[in-house]
């Protein structure tokens, strides 16, 4: 009975992703949830909430990144954070839909806000190291290039999906000198660079981040070389996890969604993400401002409570 609903949901999500490849998967998920809310024919608010939760779970099953689940939860909290005392259900729904549109508007501006904050930290003549393909980092570097700053970038290849090459292509289009390095060459190249900027798939309660595998290594090496390690992330990526070490990250985030569904023995699969503890991060640039890792918990308490 759920099948057609599920199919519609997933189709819409995929369509959104295809329409705008530059959009974060979490934003596409939130758009899908908003559409789902509009189409939902539930009778009670509690039922509405339950079905939204179910929809978020489905989407997490489709794309297992941390941002989708955190974005979904924040969306749900944001729309319910208003007084839903109206008698009429349709009026409540309308209020929730308006809040949903507001939320979407806010987060679509978030990348611009982050770029505005971060580009000032890139000085003229800087050499930057980044990891894998991150659209937020790309936007930051675009803004810095637009401000007529001269800088060069080293990108790691980021196996197993060679996403780094995609990043290098995009940077070449901006006329930024870029070099692709092996993942194993991070320690070798670090003495030449001035700063390291990476994106994040999720920002956890301790102030650490969850990102593509290889980020932790880069953070440890930059700490050893005393180079600043900056993270750029939008605020909907803040998630209520608290991993103590690499093992403590839940399996549902570590592997791709299809792997989780098909493979029996996960210990043979290679994880796609790793956890970087807050002690290795210098600053986080978010649309809520420039934060130190210990301030993330403060912001999370404000967002979630």
């Amino acid at each position, binding site marked *: 009975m759920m099948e057609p609903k599920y199919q519609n949901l997933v189709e819409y999500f995929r369509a959104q992703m295809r329409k705008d490849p530059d959009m974060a998967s979490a934003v596409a998920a939130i758009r899908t949830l908003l559409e789902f809310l509009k189409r939902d024919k539930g009778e009670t608010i509690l039922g509405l909430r339950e079905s939204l939760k179910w929809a978020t779970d489905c989407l997490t099953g489709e794309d297992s990144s941390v941002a989708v689940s955190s974005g979904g939860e924040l969306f749900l909290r944001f729309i319910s954070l208003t007084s839903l005392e109206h008698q009429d259900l349709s009026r409540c729904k309308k209020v929730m839909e308006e809040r949903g549109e507001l939320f979407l508007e806010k987060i679509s501006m978030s990348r611009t806000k982050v770029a505005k904050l971060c580009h000032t930290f890139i000085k003229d003549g800087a050499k930057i190291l980044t990891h894998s393909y991150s659209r937020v980092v790309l936007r930051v570097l675009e803004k810095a290039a637009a401000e007529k700053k001269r800088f060069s970038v080293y990108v790691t290849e980021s196996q197993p999906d060679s996403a780094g090459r995609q990043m290098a292509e995009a940077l070449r289009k901006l006329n930024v000198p870029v070099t692709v390095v092996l993942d194993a060459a991070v320690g070798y190249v670090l003495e030449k660079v001035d700063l390291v900027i990476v994106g994040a798939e999720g920002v956890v309660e301790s102030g650490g981040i969850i990102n593509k595998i290889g980020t932790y290594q880069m953070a440890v090496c930059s700490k050893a070389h005393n180079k600043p390690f900056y993270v750029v992330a939008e605020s909907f990526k803040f998630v209520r996890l608290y991993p103590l070490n690499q093992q403590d990250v839940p399996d549902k985030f570590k592997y791709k969604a299809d792997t989780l569904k098909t493979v029996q023995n996960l210990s043979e699969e290679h994880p796609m993400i790793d956890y970087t503890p807050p002690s290795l991060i210098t600053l986080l640039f978010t649309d809520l401002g420039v934060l130190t890792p*210990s301030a993330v918990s403060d912001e999370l308490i404000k967002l979630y409570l």
Partner: protein
Amino acid sequence: TDVIIESSVGYFTEGPERKDDIVKAKQEGKELTKEEKQRLRKEKKQQKKSKEKKDDKPSRDSEKEKKPASAASPAPQTPTQPPAQKAPSAAPAPVPVPASETPSAADKPAKSKAELKAERRARQEAERASKGKKGDVGPQAAPGKPKAPPSELQPVVKRLPEHVQVDNPEVLKKLAKKLERQQTPEYNAATKIPLRSDYGYKVSLFSHLHQYSRKAPLTQQLGIPSTVIHPAIVRLGLQYSQGIVAGSNARSVALLHAFKQVIRDYTTPPNEELSRDLVNRLKPYISFLNQCRPLSASMGNAIKYIKKEISNIPSQCKEEEAKRKLLNCIDCYINEKIVLAAKAIAKYSIEKISDGDVILVYGCSSLVNHILCEAFEKNRKFRVIVVDSRPRLEGREALRRLVQKGINCTYVLISAVSYILPEVSKVFLGAHALLANGYVMSRVGTSQIALVAKAFNVPVLVCCETYKFCERVQTDSFVSNELDDPDDLIVTRTGTTQLEHWQEVPSLGLLNLVYDVTPPDFVDLVITDLGMIPCTSVPVVLRVKNVDQ
């Protein structure tokens, strides 16, 4: 009724004349009008002030006897000199003033007025000078602080709590006076709260703290019958000082139960309001308990809560109803902040315990034991390593509780911690208090375990309820701590007592510390009833709690 009248009379006066007036007024059945009450309060304040001045003068005399009269200039010139000397340095201010007064010591009664004038002028100059150069006073005041009385002459410097100024005789005298004043009704020597004296040689780094002997509990010095202190509180004080009730949660709960008994036995005296009188009744009890064993942070927060609840009782509330309300409040507090909090913390902690874990615990924390027992009931497969240390050997109690549940345990002493740590996957620690700068105050030895665990990259989790969060800031274990009975260190496991006559060796000191502070860099996670937070977010929780209240 005679007893009740007398008990309320004791409040107002020190001199016999006023007492007669008031006894007369009360026995006539008239209630004191508002103006009379205000007048009485004013007079009481004035009498206090004059008494303090009298006390200060002899104390300052004794102080200047110790100091050499270096800047001794002839008496008539001296009143003008100190103000001039004030301008350059405010901190050595107390030294020139008493030094200049030494020549006038001979004809004190005649010079008393001039002296007082000079003192007052000197004080004003000091205040003006210190207000002008606030920055200068700070570093200069710091070396001068232990010598000078902290309150009068240096208003810029914040007053230190008296329990960390044990080596300053001024402060001890003030404390004795305060205890005298706190006795409510009968003021004969047998019923006042005695000032407990220190025992044995104190190591110089900790000479600013009290060190009591367990063989001389305060209760031996109380007269019988002790009508000032409620018997439940006397019993509690004895239990604290002998170590029968130990552990931060146990002490708070025992305190709250004793206060419940006090409230049940309390009757409002006539012409008094419950909200104000009860709070004043509790003050001597709290000083008494503080003398038996210094109050813990959790006890301090509990007392603050009770005082707030009592003072919020509306005046038109009848006594029975008010008492019932208070008893209810206390029960709620215990239930919410301790019992339910433990359940919430256990729920969060179980998520962090996975199958195959090897968990290290230190000493006996009621909360950590509760968590481990709960996790074991939820069928998590783990084993525990209990680390223990002399002289308290509290780990044995924890070991007993865990083994009774059927948990697989290992027992080591703290000296073997670096040997056993490579096997450990997580460390669970309890806390006595969490300070506002993120430091964890806990049983001595905790910071050592956290340090070694950090060196081995083992995650350290601290479990603490929010009622133990305190607004204090501390960065080391010296400034505020508790010294236990040094005689506890004498006997070793084999029963040898080579240190038995340690007091006779002049260069030997025994140190038995109770608490230490762990910096937040060594702690990975704090589990509270509000959820899992990093150690640096403690001030956020305090802020949220203050907003709630």
